[in-house]
């Protein structure tokens, strides 16, 4: 008899300290799918979730504002829907493989908890418990690491350690001592000047294929970039975040993504990425106006972690 395992679903929990861009990430998901022109699109599984999807997306594209800080645990029931090309062995094997298109729906049960919820000392018990409970029940976790916040506050390890300690305690009956979740580690805010310039300085930038030639950090460099950013942290504790994650979850179930929900600024006249003029995030202005988005949104690595988590959790494996 296997150890008792809590009932888990295909849900994905967004986890990160406050202001790390969790909600913005979700708001950019639909835009990212549209811009990719791939087979996937996101829809609301129920009316409330559809409304939330519309609100988040239009806020980002029309008003060019960031979503307000999440105050309570938000539950988004969205679905990734797409026609996926599949292959099947023919009856007579000598005829080879048969290809066909199949409508695939991947449920996105997303839980967006306030950043404060990850701080046991400061968060209301209901928030803390809500976050932990959702993580326990989730199959996947999107973990947000904000290098800018870490540079300024240096509290990434403290947030991570508290949550994982609690999570491990609640799921301590695991046979191998590691949690079963798939974890997409998102090194967020790649568009921020300091983050991007650090990547550029480390020589990790490559040009994206396509007309706009946006910069990106290749997937196989993402973990190294994460390590480098942790080394730059003033607290000296950030480097432990990586170790903690890999000690807590199965390393093969962790994948790293360098992401940006809003992407880089694209001059509407040039229509191509400009190394000298890429800033898309406008910090809060002197007159009290909140931070805004300068131009159109071109999300980077927003779809990929969600899709990877969804497919991993569901066991689906599209070609």
């Amino acid at each position, binding site marked *: 008899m296997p150890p008792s395992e809590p009932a888990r679903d295909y849900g994905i929990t967004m986890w990160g300290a406050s202001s790390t861009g969790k909600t913005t990430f979700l708001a950019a998901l639909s835009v990212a799918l549209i811009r990719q022109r791939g087979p996937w699109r996101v829809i609301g599984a129920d009316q409330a979730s559809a409304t939330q999807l519309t609100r988040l997306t239009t806020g980002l594209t029309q008003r060019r504002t960031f979503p307000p800080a999440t105050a309570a645990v938000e539950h988004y029931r969205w679905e990734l829907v797409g026609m996926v090309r599949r292959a099947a062995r023919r009856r007579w094997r000598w005829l080879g493989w048969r290809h066909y298109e199949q409508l695939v729906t991947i449920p996105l049960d997303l839980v967006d908890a306030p950043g404060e919820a990850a701080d046991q000392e400061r968060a209301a018990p209901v928030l803390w418990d809500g976050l932990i409970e959702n993580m326990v029940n989730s199959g996947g976790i999107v973990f947000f690491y904000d290098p800018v916040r870490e540079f300024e506050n240096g509290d990434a390890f403290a947030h991570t350690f508290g949550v994982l300690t609690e999570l491990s305690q609640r799921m301590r009956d695991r046979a191998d001592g590691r949690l079963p979740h798939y974890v997409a580690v998102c090194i967020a805010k790649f568009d921020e*000047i300091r983050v991007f310039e650090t990547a550029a300085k480390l020589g990790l930038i490559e040009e994206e294929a396509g007309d706009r030639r946006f910069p990106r950090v290749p997937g196989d460099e993402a973990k190294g970039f994460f390590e480098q950013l942790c080394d730059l942290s003033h607290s000296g504790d950030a480097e432990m975040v990586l170790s903690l994650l890999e000690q807590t979850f199965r390393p093969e179930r962790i994948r790293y993504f360098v992401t940006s929900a809003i992407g880089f*600024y694209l001059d509407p006249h040039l229509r191509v990425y400009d190394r*000298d*003029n*890429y*800033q898309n995030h406008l910090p809060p202005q002197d007159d009290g106006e909140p931070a805004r988005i300068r131009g159109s949104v071109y999300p980077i690595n927003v779809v990929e972690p969600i899709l990877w988590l969804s497919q991993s959790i569901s066991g689906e494996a599209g070609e």
Partner: protein
Amino acid sequence: MLMSGTEQEPGGEGLREAIARDVAGLPGGAAFMISEFAAAGFITWEVRRDQDGTPHARQWLVPWSELYHRREPGPSGHSHEQGRPGGHRAAAEPPAAELAGSELTGGALTGSELTGGARARITQAAEGSSLLLVCSAPADPSAAPAFALARGVLERGGVTWRRAFTCPVPLEDLLLEVFTDDPLTQWYDLVALRRTPEGRLVFTTRQLFAPGAVRGAAESLTVRCEPSDDAGTVFAVMAYRLEERTTFRRVTQRVANVPHGTYELTAELRRPGEVRFRLRELAVKFRPDRRSWEELVARVPPRLDRLRPAHLIVAVEVSGSTARVLERIDRAEQLIRCVAAGADGPLHVSLISFGAHAVHRDDAEEPVTVLSWAQSSGVALAALSRLRERGAAPPGYSRAAQLECMLTTVATRLTGEHGRPVLVTAGSRPAFPRRVDRVSEIIPCPNRNDWAAAWYHLRQHPGMAFGAIRDFGPGGEAWRHLGHDAAGQLAAVDVRRFAADLGLVSSTAQYIPFPLVEAEEG
């Protein structure tokens, strides 16, 4: 020439001509005498031409009561020296009671009743000391016998170069007319100062009138009056002879309180020794100045920090609160007025407004606007008034202002032909960077202008100066460069000192007692 005998001259024309001829032939420092038999007494006139060529006359009056027999002979006559003849005769007239109570029969004196001393005096005048004998009171019972005595001496002597005139016009008036119409015998120059290229002040002159010039001659010239003390600016005329060019003699010296500026000065010759001044642009009173030449020379500073013609470019940031924008405009106006009032040479003023770049789709871009370029200060002030009416520009991006576009605009338009350029920027916000700025995180200028490149380009202009008036605080790198030569805070800037730091006005008040003239070409 008429020899002996008396010429009757009701209007005095012949006498005037005779005097004018004699005055004209009078060399500097020489004199001749005229004996006048006037109602007041026997007047001996000495007509002298000064070393500066100005004719003068002075008189000695002896009342008839002292020349005719009387009970108590009085003292000898009195001397009156004067620049213009006459003026004392009425006071010297003998009392009527003395004349009425004399020994003369019928109430009239006769030549036979002249005292011995009087006869000797008159005879001496007629025989040699006086060039002209003039009876200006032929009906006077005292003057007529005395004149008859003199005329007799003249006739008996047969001297051809002395002449006797009977003319009812007072000699004083004739002398005044002659002196007034006398042509100049020397050169008349205005005393001025000239600034050498090294900044030293040296005395110089500007020619007003040449020998031969007569009353009514006028000459105009351009002079510059620096700030003077309470006494005012001195306008002095010196006379000299060509053969002794280094010897100047002061002819007239007048003073007027003239505001600092450049003027067209007109000098009009009223008569030898008297020049009247007036300024075309300004009605001021020219007063006589009694100060000594040494005192005036001592007040001339050795140097004058002359300022070159300037092109003042005022750039006003119109982003921010309306109150703040209006305060910047006020300060710009003060600066322009201060510089216009204190500038040495031609002043050109340009006015530029700049705001913030638009960043959001709904924002209107407020471009850098050249409101006036290389115009007079008046035109710039008028443009500033219009800018005041407009008030603050749309807010746009609130973390920066178009300093880089403003500088690029100035760098593009500036040629240097309008004088030494001075850029004064009033504002607060930092510049938009040319590219992404990881420190400030201010978005780049959409036009990709580079404030530093434009600044260094402008810096190449000879004499270029930069002044900054910031709302508060020192500002960033761009403002540090913009305030390279002068920097001040909006609420506390001393505009006069600020302008002086930029070389737009003199740093210290230099009082220059004489007008300045530009150096002659070559």
